[in-house]
C-alpha cells in the first residue's frame, strides 16, 4: 500500500524550482501533491505525480538529482481533528513521523495526505488495523 514519491534535490538558486516544474509540465506530468523542505542553501522538493518513473526519467535527463522513495497516502475525514486522530495512532506506538503534506485535490469528502515515517510497514499495519483508508497507486491514477 505504499505509494511512490518523487524527491528532487534543489540548490538554492533563482529559478531552479521553476525549471523542475517546467520540465515536468513539458513531459505532461501531473502533480497531485507537493511540498518543499528547505534549509538555508538547499531544499528538497517532494511530489506525488501521476507517472513517477517517467517523471524521474525526464528529470534525470535534464540533469536534476531525483529519487523515487516510498510514502503512505491516507484518506482523512475532512473535519477538525481528522489528521490528528491518525497521528495519535502512530504516536502511541512510537512511530516517528518524518513529514506530512496534503494533496491538492480532495476525494469526495475526504482530504488526502502523504505521510512518511521511520517505519512504513508498521505504519501501514497500524493504520489498516484502525480502519484508516489507505491510498494505492490505482486510486491516485484515477484522481
Amino acid at each position, binding site marked *: 500500500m505504499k505509494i511512490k514519491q518523487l524527491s528532487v*534535490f*534543489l*540548490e*538554492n538558486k533563482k529559478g531552479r524550482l521553476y525549471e523542475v516544474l517546467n520540465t515536468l509540465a513539458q513531459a505532461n506530468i501531473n502533480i497531485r501533491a507537493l511540498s518543499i523542505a528547505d534549509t538555508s542553501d538547499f531544499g*528538497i522538493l517532494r511530489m506525488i505525480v501521476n507517472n513517477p518513473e517517467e517523471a524521474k526519467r525526464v528529470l534525470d535527463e535534464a540533469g536534476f538529482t531525483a*529519487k523515487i522513495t516510498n510514502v503512505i497516502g491516507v484518506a482523512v475525514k475532512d473535519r477538525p481533528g481528522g489528521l490528528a486522530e491518525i497521528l495519535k495512532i502512530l504516536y502511541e506506538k512510537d512511530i516517528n513521523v518524518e513529514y506530512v503534506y496534503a494533496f491538492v485535490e480532495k476525494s469526495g469528502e475526504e482530504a488526502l495526505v502523504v505521510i512518511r515515517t521511520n517505519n512504513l510497514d508498521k505504519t501501514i499495519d497500524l493504520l489498516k488495523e484502525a480502519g484508516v483508508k489507505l491510498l494505492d497507486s490505482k486510486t491516485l491514477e484515477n484522481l
Partner: protein
Amino acid sequence: METRFFNPKIEKLSPSELRVLQFKKLKTVLRRVYQKVPFYREKLKEAGINLSKIKTLSDLKELPFTTKEDLFVDYPFGLLAEPLEKVVRLHTSSGTTGKPKAIFFSKKDIWAQAELIARALVMTGSTSQDILQNSMTYGLFTGALVMHYGAELLGMLVIPAGPGNTERQIELMRTFGTTCVHMTPSYALYVATVIQGKGLKPGVDIKLKRAYLGAEPYSEETRRKIEEMLKVDVYNCYGLSEMGGPGVAFECQFKKGLHLWEDAFIAEIIDPKTGMPVKPGEVGELVLTTLNRTAMPLIRYRTRDLTYAFEEPCPCGRTHIKIARIIGRADDMFIVRGVNIFPQQIEAVLMGIKGVAQNYQIILEGLDEMIVKVEIDRDFFDGRIERLLKLRDEITEKLKAVIQVRPKVELVEPGTLPVSEGKAKRVIDRRTL
C-alpha cells in the same frame, strides 16, 4: 625487500655530518656565483650580503631568493658559472608564456645528477640486472635523458623507447622482458588499460616489477590502481629542470615520502607569501639551493611547488630529509583569517568523504568568509534531508580540522560547478578588504 644503497656512505651520513657537508658546499657555491655570475654578484650586493658573514647553514635564509623570472634576466647564458666550453648540454623547460627556461649542464653536472638517479633506482630495489624501458620524451625535456644516464650508471639495460606507440611499447616489454618502466602516470594508466584489453596477464606475459612515475601530479588512489593493474610497485619521483631534472627526490621502498638528496640540495620550506620558514611539518613552498652543480648553480630557487617535510627518521636508514608528494602550486594559495590555505588541502578532504562528487568551488567574500560549494553525488541523494545535513556537517568539521578555519559548506546539485579537468577556476575571491 632488503635495503641496499648505491652510495651508502653519503646516503647514511649522520644528520650532523650532513649539515657540515652542506655548509661546506654552500660556502663554495656562494663564492663561485659571487665571482663568476654578475647577476648573483649584483643580487647579493643589492641585498647587502657580505659572504664572510655567512657562518652557519641558518644564515642561508638571509640570502635573496632566485625566482623563475630571474632566469630570464640575463637570458640565455647569464647564469652560467662556467665558460661555455665547459658546458655540454642544454635542456629547456616550457614556460607558460614566451621563452623556455634554459638549463645548462657541465660533464660533472650530468654525472652528478645521474648518481642521484642511480641511488633512487637502487633505493627501490633495482639492480644492474633490471631492464628499464624509458618511455618519457627524449629531447629538450630533462625527464628521459637524465633518467637514461642514471640507469646506465647503475648498469641497467636501458630501452630508450620514448613515449607513445603503445603497441610497440607492449611489444618491447614482451620481447625484451622489461622489468621497469619510466613514464607519466597518465600514460601508465593508458598502457595498463591497453594491456588488459589485449588479455595479456601482468606477471605472466608482461614481467614488470616497478614503475617510476613522475612529471605529473597523481593521487595515492591512482598509484594503487596502476599497481594493481600492472602488478608493479609504483614509485613517485620528483624533479624539475631547474634542479637538473628528475632525481631531486625519490621514494624508497617504504613509499612514504620522497628522500631529497641533501648532499646535492639544501631544501627549505617557506610560506610563499612571507618568505619565512614554515613550522616543522607545515605545508609550504619548496625552495632549493644546488650544492653540486657547476654550470648553473641556483641559490634559494623558488620551485613554486608545495609540500611538507616528514620529521621521523625513515626505516630504510637514509638520513636525507623526506618530503611529501607535491600537493600543489604555491600560486594557488589563498589566505583566510590569517591562515594559509591551498585548494589541494580542501580537495583531499572532499575526496575522502562519501556522498561528495568530484567538483567543488571555493568562494571568498564579505569579511573574510569562506564558502565551499560541494556537488553531491547523485547516488547519495535518497530524498532525506537529514542525510544531507549530516553530510554538510561532516564536510564542515573535516575541513575545519585540516585548514583551521570553519567554512560555510553549501551542497549543490551535481554537474553545476565547473569541471575539475584542466585549469578550472577553483577559488573565486570576492572579498572587498
